[in-house]
């Protein structure tokens, strides 16, 4: 029997969801050797900028194409939207070549967000891998800003090398302020790095959290996500306590075209954030 579908929460329902809103490039920032962020402001100052952490937009580079990007800034910064990505295809390559003042089209915000309200009063475990950190970043900003609403907040974050760790300075500041339990690990490092080296899943058993009530949010490459899920399960978290971010070939972004279909779900509307128990049986199937 197909799982029950959830109502899709969105920050704002766009009257014309297939019609892009025009945004101007305000700033470009290089965050690591291959990851960059692009800050965008709407031409229409009345455009509603609210979004739920985890939601995405479809970004259209004129003459090139459209692709999905998770909004990757603190939702409290309402004057702009930010997309963080690296060059992996035609659209991201074109985005990288944009200059301040150039115009792009955005549709959104789309999809579901991280369950920050359900996390209130509980230990929160965030697991991020690679550029998946930028997809969790807006949620982490909210957790840090509203820190007193949550119990222990931990982040396990894996990357290829120390130079690939995004937001590292801010993460360290939160750790030093006692707001965040931070566990960073990399696949390889030079002697200058004194932190962990090894796969992220090996750090999960060390997390200080109440397994019976903690809520986990996992975002990263799907292979990493699967191994993190095994360890979170071994740590005692039930699938109902875990939310994961899935990435599929999203094209229309509004559940019409079917490109991102995963079993009974459209990742663009029922996701990209899913409660793990709803998609558990679908994750390891080569085709659904």
């Amino acid at each position: 029997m197909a799982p029950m579908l959830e109502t899709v929460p969105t920050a704002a329902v766009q009257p014309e969801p297939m019609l892009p809103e025009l945004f101007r490039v305000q700033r470009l920032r290089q965050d690591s050797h291959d990851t960059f962020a692009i800050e965008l402001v709407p031409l229409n100052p009345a455009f509603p900028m609210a979004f739920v952490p985890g939601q995405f937009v479809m970004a259209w580079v004129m003459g090139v194409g459209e692709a999905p990007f998770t909004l990757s800034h603190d939702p409290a910064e309402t004057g702009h939207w930010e997309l963080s990505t690296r060059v992996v295809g035609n659209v991201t390559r074109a985005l990288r070549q944009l200059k301040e003042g150039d115009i792009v089209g955005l549709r959104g915000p789309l999809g579901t967000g991280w369950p920050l309200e359900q996390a209130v009063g509980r230990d929160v475990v965030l697991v991020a891998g690679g550029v998946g950190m930028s997809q969790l970043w807006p949620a982490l900003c909210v957790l840090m800003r509203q820190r007193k609403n949550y119990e222990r907040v931990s982040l396990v974050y894996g990357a290829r090398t120390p130079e690939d760790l995004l937001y590292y300075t801010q993460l360290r500041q939160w750790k030093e302020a006692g707001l965040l339990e931070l566990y960073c690990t990399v696949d390889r490092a030079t002697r200058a790095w004194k932190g962990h080296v090894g796969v992220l899943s090996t750090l999960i058993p060390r997390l200080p959290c109440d397994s019976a009530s903690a809520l986990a949010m996992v975002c990263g490459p799907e292979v990493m996500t699967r191994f993190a899920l095994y360890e979170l399960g071994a740590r005692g978290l039930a699938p109902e306590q875990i939310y994961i971010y899935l990435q599929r070939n999203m094209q229309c972004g509004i559940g019409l075209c079917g490109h991102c279909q995963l079993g009974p779900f459209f990742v663009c509307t029922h996701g990209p954030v899913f409660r793990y128990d709803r998609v558990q049986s679908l994750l390891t199937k080569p085709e659904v």
Partner: protein
Amino acid sequence: MNTQTLEPIIRGHPFFDGVNPALIGLIVGCARNARFEEGHILFREGDPADSFYLIRDGRVAVEAMIPQRGYTTVQTINAGEVVGWSWLLPPFKWHYDARVIKPVRAVVFDGKCLREQCEKNHDLGYEMLKRISQVIAGRLEATRLQLLDVYGANA
């Protein structure tokens, strides 16, 4: 510290969790307590593998020397984990370097002594082999994941 006080420390280390205390009694004589400062080299590639380390505190980097790139850390080992299985398997040589990157408190076993005790008492030998196999399996799985380069652009 004498061997009588080392026994509960060994028993309390996760590696020996649940082991029959009588078996631990057989190997406590092979153990000594040790502290190592940051930068200390526990062993170097190619040296005889004559020690087995139970890490109680601190962090150890397992490193490989890569020509024209220098030392690369391929894994770190933390409190509650162990360093080294080469003491158990021929040719009893280390295959990597191990360097202390955060001051370490450890119980260090003499590898030759451990091997002899394992040969004398196969219950002990089997217990050690099962536990070392778990460590090796965990590290093999981790290495496979690292080889997948899951954070790469094409992941």
